[in-house]
């Protein structure tokens, strides 16, 4: 008899029709501007530059090593390296980017720049409402637009950022320990110079 399968199908749509009024699992649509999906932590779209502290110009982690520029598959990053150097978070003198542009109309959000960065200076953002009426200038982000604080990073990717911070802290602690050690060694050396016996040897030299 013709029509059995058709009737079965009709029953199924009817079930879905009524089910969509009672079952949240069926009606998965989210009414976007008023209601938003919870932010998934791993989400990525476009890169940004992380800075420590409050002043983005001071705290920018990027040392303009230009690895990301080279590795970027669609070549959407443009970096100009500074001539001078200034101390980074650990106090080491480093170069910094005088220009750091990302054309997010070209960027394909692959996050390879993030993977290859040895300094944890570039990370992926989660902002997605980026529409603009200027499709060239408006989507070419410069250093200032790209710079976001470490607090922001901690907010959008807590787990990842915590790991990065811990690594930094460890590194800093190591550096401090090293510095302390060096200082101690220096102090010890200095102390040694002050000790009579040692003083003599130096004097001999």
């Amino acid at each position, binding site marked *: 008899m*013709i*029509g*059995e*399968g*058709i009737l*079965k*199908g009709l*029953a*199924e*749509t009817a079930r*879905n029709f009524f089910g969509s009024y009672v079952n949240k699992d*069926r009606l*998965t649509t989210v009414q976007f501007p008023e209601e938003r999906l919870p932010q*998934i*932590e*791993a*989400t*990525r779209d476009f890169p940004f530059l992380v800075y420590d502290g409050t002043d983005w110009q001071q705290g920018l982690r990027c040392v303009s090593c230009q*690895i990301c520029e080279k*590795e*970027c*598959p669609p070549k959407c990053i443009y970096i100009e390296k500074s001539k001078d150097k200034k101390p980074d978070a650990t106090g080491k003198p480093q170069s910094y980017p005088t220009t750091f542009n990302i054309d997010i109309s070209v960027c*394909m*959000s*692959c*996050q*390879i720049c993030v*993977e*290859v960065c*040895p300094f944890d200076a570039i990370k*992926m953002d989660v902002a997605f409402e980026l529409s603009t009426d200027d499709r060239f200038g408006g989507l070419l982000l410069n250093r200032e637009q790209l710079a976001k604080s470490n607090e922001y990073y901690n907010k959008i990717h807590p*787990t990842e950022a915590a790991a990065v911070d811990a690594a930094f802290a460890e590194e800093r602690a190591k550096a401090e320990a090293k510095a302390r050690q060096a200082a101690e060694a220096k102090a010890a050396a200095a102390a040694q110079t002050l000790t009579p016996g040692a003083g003599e040897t130096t004097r001999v030299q």
Partner: protein
Amino acid sequence: MSVLTEAPVDLTPSQSDDRTDSQLLEVSMGPQHPSTHGVFRMDVALDGERVVKLKPVFGYLHRNHEKIAETESYLGCMPYTDRLDYICSITNNWAYALAVEKLAGIQVPERAEYLRVITGELTRLQNHAGLVGFLMQDMGASGTPLMYAFREREKILDLFEALTGARMMCNYMRFGGCRVDAPAGWLQQAQKVIDAFPRFLDEFERLLVSNEILMARTQGVGVVSREQAVNAGISGPMARASGVNYDLRKVDKYGIYDRFSFRVPLGENGDVYDRYMLRVLEMRESVEILKQAMRDVPSGPIMDPNTKTRGFRPKAGEAYGRIEGPKGELGFYLISDGSSNPYRFRVRPPSLINLTLLEDMCLGQNVADIVIILGSVDIVLGEVDR
């Protein structure tokens, strides 16, 4: 692009030529057409509603993928593979990673293999779900099956986003493992989705599988014989629908597929209905694989510690890595000259090769059949045109 010497339909062009040209209606279907699954064109000559000539025209989405890859680093090619078959980026990543791993002789840790199987089979689920939905849409079912399929696909895409950060362009695999480990709770979330998936399949079968209109539309339409399928190099569900027992998960046992017990459904008629049903059945088998993988997934590292991210240079040589993608055999052929870029980069796109039989399938059929035949081939133009 006839593959066999004798035409499969008795309505050969020489016979139709004696009809005056004014009686043939030449229609250009595409590149702007709702059912060409992208920017694909078919120059069709119609006698009434029957197709007497069909010329596939593609290349509208050509992006020079293989040549660009020669100027990129090995790692830099990875995100480009996402964009081949943009529905199933993870399996593309996998095939490419497999090729590079063969080239450089890299071992993949246990947990990474399991994650690859889990994400790969989830990709197969969402691809097949989307495909059967789109096929129904081509058949004019006003979007209901498609919406059900997309409802389920969304859940899988949410999983992908939680794992890889992106819903479609996942860029997940790396040479010697996976990019990130599953975050806390991800496996439990995935288990929930996998457990709920058979419910969707039941619903889908109730909605359509025994539907008379569907059967009348698809059975006996677009038949590909076993010989034709083998001769044309068809792979994937389309070959299996014609009765060719060829599944790389069984043939190559790449990765850790020898550890799972699953069956390979085979069709007999090789028509649109078989192709459609095989996808539904394969989804059930994929769920079985996923259940086993979720049960056995070990803990441990996810990356081979000896593989460098920066400055990766495999030694000179060549390698071909292939996997059973949702659409068929997806292979990457790489030649390395020892530098950081591939010397030659070649993709074996299942979509394109499965599409070569389109004319043979369509001749003598109706206009309406072209659309569903094309839909049943399961093409993504990103992969066809590259």
